[in-house]
């Protein structure tokens, strides 16, 4: 336990605290009811977010085990460990789990915890909708894994190209479960995006104008706007696939006017922004971690924000680079080559700004910074292989080979999972009040870094030597055996490192060093409250005067007064300059979001078996959501007494 840091008490004095009586009243108001029913009725953003994070990490571990099975089967040529049918299910489940059940949701889960704390708000804008989105996500994941355990797991790849995933070549319900899992996760993702956008734009603490928002909050705002316009594409595509399979529509039936490429266009119009949905939030993690551990603000705030916005727009313009091997016109493809190259510029700007920040700062080298530094090695390598894949002619050799498997893991793990681990090490003290062990952290990092490169760098060579993607085995005389063995050993190393992370978490929860409000001496608002934060986050809502409030002098006024402690009240502020606009009561904890999610699950799963499920299951959904909305007479009578009209 480090000696209590003298500087902390100066921090305390500057951030005014409410008197203990008000603090306990606030805690009681924002706390969820106890007991089993209370557990299901919880809507506090931190409770839901912690469950969300744990659920997505469990899916990450499940996806990891599937990856180990894949590497086990591919370690040696002609291995008979896993048959083709089982293997197709395993690699499809690995891809679908990692992309839909882990990568995008975990970023939203972390965001729903951090954003209210970083912008000085006591809650998310629509807490019940946030709870509903979590339950829908979890039930979708459970449905997919239930299908997988009864041998009905999807087996057409994580992007399920038609006609293989169509009604004729995928008999049974396997692809239906996959398409319905898309409906679950996208519905959840879209709702979380609406919650995050509204929270960021309307609930910022007074004084936190747009140019004073932390860069992480900017990344989540940009990501959420991308979600609004990207995810509908895959929802339309998967709905069309389910109607093709169940009621006989012909969207993808070439014989009756449909087209196989319509699926690829719709899927990849979502697919490429999707990988940026996974990549942009970690840019926010890196900005936060680099600023704190370089002991100085990130270089070029406006340049960083503009780079985020540019990346978001360009991400919608390059989906056809996934379809360079099809018979689309060559000139069109060259346009997408150019678009795929240009999108490297905003990312380059951000990387250069971070390097400049590190160079001109004083470095406090701890595990979070190590994970971020790994980004500069792995993501940059992955980005450059991406530029190779951007060229049409090169892509005809590299597309759908193990070169692409290497590229996507370099950008996804290097660009998202490494910074995510860094973020866990950085914000774990804020979530739990205890620091993760530094020595275990270093072991975890180095094992992960070395294991990662040993696993995925050889795959570049395998791709060039002609090994295609998604093969359950390969002949011995192709000479791919050695590199595959090396990759499999690397995969085991990654597994060891993730196990070490779990050990570190389990150990630190019990005996980790007590963190206190600000163990890293960081600059943003979440470090001005206790760890773990009280249920209402801020005993008094702060007034913000700068980008790094804890690092800058705090002029008058310092905080907001006059908010009720008996009601869950938030201060709604204007969009641009966050000036106080009006007070708003947040809804009470309720079981109905959970029950509505249950009813929606019955509707979705039922509609796999009969189209009429959409009709008769809509009734319980309507009933549940109506009760969820319906105000309680007693509560309203209380609130009306202190109501002030605009």
């Amino acid at each position: 336990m480090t000696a209590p840091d003298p500087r902390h008490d100066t921090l305390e004095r500057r951030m005014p605290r409410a008197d203990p009586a008000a603090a306990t009243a606030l805690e009681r108001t924002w706390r969820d009811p106890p007991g089993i029913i209370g557990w299901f009725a919880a809507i506090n953003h931190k409770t839901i977010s912690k469950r969300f994070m744990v659920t997505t990490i469990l899916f990450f571990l499940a996806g990891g085990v599937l990856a180990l099975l894949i590497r086990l089967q591919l370690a040696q040529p002609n291995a008979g460990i896993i048959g083709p049918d089982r293997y197709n299910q395993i690699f499809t489940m690995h891809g679908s789990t990692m992309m839909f059940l882990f990568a995008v949701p975990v970023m939203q889960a972390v965001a729903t915890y951090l954003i209210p704390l970083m912008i000085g708000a006591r809650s998310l804008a629509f807490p019940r909708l946030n709870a509903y989105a979590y339950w829908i996500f979890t039930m979708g994941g459970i449905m997919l894994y239930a299908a997988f355990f009864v041998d009905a797991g999807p087996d057409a790849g994580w992007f399920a190209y038609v006609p293989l995933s169509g009604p004729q070549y995928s008999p049974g319900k396997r692809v239906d479960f996959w398409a319905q899992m898309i409906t679950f996760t996208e519905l959840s993702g879209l709702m979380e995006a609406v919650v995050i956008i509204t929270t960021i734009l309307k609930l910022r603490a007074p004084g936190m104008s747009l140019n004073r928002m932390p860069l992480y909050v900017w990344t989540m705002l940009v990501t959420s706007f991308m979600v609004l316009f990207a995810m509908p594409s895959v929802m339309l595509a998967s709905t069309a696939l389910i109607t093709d399979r169940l009621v006989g529509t012909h969207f993808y039936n070439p014989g009756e006017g449909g087209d196989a490429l319509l699926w690829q266009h719709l899927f990849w119009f979502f697919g490429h922004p999707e990988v940026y949905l996974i990549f942009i939030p970690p840019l926010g993690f890196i900005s936060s971690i680099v600023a704190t551990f370089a002991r100085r603000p990130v270089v070029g705030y406006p340049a960083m924000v503009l780079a985020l916005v540019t990346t978001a727009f360009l991400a919608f313009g390059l989906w056809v680079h996934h379809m360079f091997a099809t018979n689309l016109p060559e000139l069109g493809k060259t346009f997408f080559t150019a678009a795929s190259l240009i999108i490297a510029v905003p990312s380059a700007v951000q990387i250069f700004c971070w390097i400049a920040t590190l160079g001109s700062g004083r470095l406090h080298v701890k595990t979070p910074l190590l994970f971020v530094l790994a980004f500069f090695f792995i993501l940059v390598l992955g980005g450059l292989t991406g530029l190779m894949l951007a060229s049409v002619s090169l892509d005809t050799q590299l597309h759908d080979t193990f070169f692409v498997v290497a590229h996507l893991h370099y950008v996804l793990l290097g660009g998202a999972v490494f910074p995510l681990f860094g973020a866990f090490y950085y914000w774990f003290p804020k979530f739990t009040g205890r620091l993760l062990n530094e020595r275990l952290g270093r072991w975890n990092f180095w094992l992960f870094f070395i294991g990662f490169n040993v696993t995925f760098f050889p795959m570049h060579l395998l791709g060039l030597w002609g090994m295609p993607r998604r093969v359950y085995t390969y002949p011995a005389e192709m000479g791919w055996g050695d590199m595959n063995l090396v990759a499999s050993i690397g995969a085991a190393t990654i597994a060891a490192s993730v196990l070490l992370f779990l050990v570190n978490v389990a150990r630190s929860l019990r005996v980790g060093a007590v963190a206190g409000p600000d163990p890293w001496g960081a600059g943003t608002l979440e470090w001005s409250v206790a760890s773990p934060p009280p249920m209402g986050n801020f005993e008094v809502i702060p007034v913000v005067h700068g980008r790094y409030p804890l690092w800058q002098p705090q002029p008058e006024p310092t905080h907001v007064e006059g908010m009720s402690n008996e009601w869950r009240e938030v201060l709604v502020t204007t969009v641009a300059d966050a000036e106080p606009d009006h007070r708003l009561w947040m809804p009470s904890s309720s079981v109905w979001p959970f029950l509505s999610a249950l009813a929606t699950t019955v509707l979705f799963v039922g509609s796999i078996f009969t189209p009429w499920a959409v009709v008769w299951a809509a009734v319980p959904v309507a009933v549940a959501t109506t009760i969820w909305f319906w105000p309680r007479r007693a509560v309203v009578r209380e609130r009306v007494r202190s109501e002030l009209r605009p």
Partner: protein
Amino acid sequence: MNALEQNRAAGKEAVRRGAALDVSGMPTFAFSTRSPMWWGTMGLVAIESTVFALTIMAYFYLRSHATVWPMSRFPPDLLWGNLNTAILLASMWPNHKAKQAAERLDLHGVRLWMTVCMVFSLAFLAVRVFEFGALNTRWDSDAYGSVVWMLLGLHTTHLVTDAYDSLVLTVLMFTGPHEGKRFVDVSENAGYWYFVVLSWLPIYAVIYWGARF
């Protein structure tokens, strides 16, 4: 007039008291872009507009591949489509009155106009049933039939959900419990209704006229 001026005009603003900003005098609900509900509704509108736009693009994508369009040779009959468009456009009038009444916090006005809106929603839901019959194609006849049914089906889902939302709100306006925030819900529901009506116009053009040119 932005939120600040409105508050200042109404004498309800944050008052500086020493180092603190006292907001106890500020209103507890607000209309239009000042309310988070507006932003939530706009998020929903953005999502659904994207779904509609992509379905329309899929319509023209499939049409560009087809030798004969519509493949079943008969475009939809215009009668029910035109009638429904008229009803939908007309339904914007009671909606607008309900929105104004809500923003005047006039409970009686809201009850009246929301009831009128419900009558309109019954009308266009009924007509919509006939529209499906007049499409002259089945969803499983060919790609044309599939995409036309998907377009009409998606919009119908929005009609049904919006009609049900408005019904729940109307009933709540009669039975109570009443509080100021409910008027914001009426105002936002009207805003969403505008979207459902206005989004019908391009879909109407595509379904009924896309097959005639």
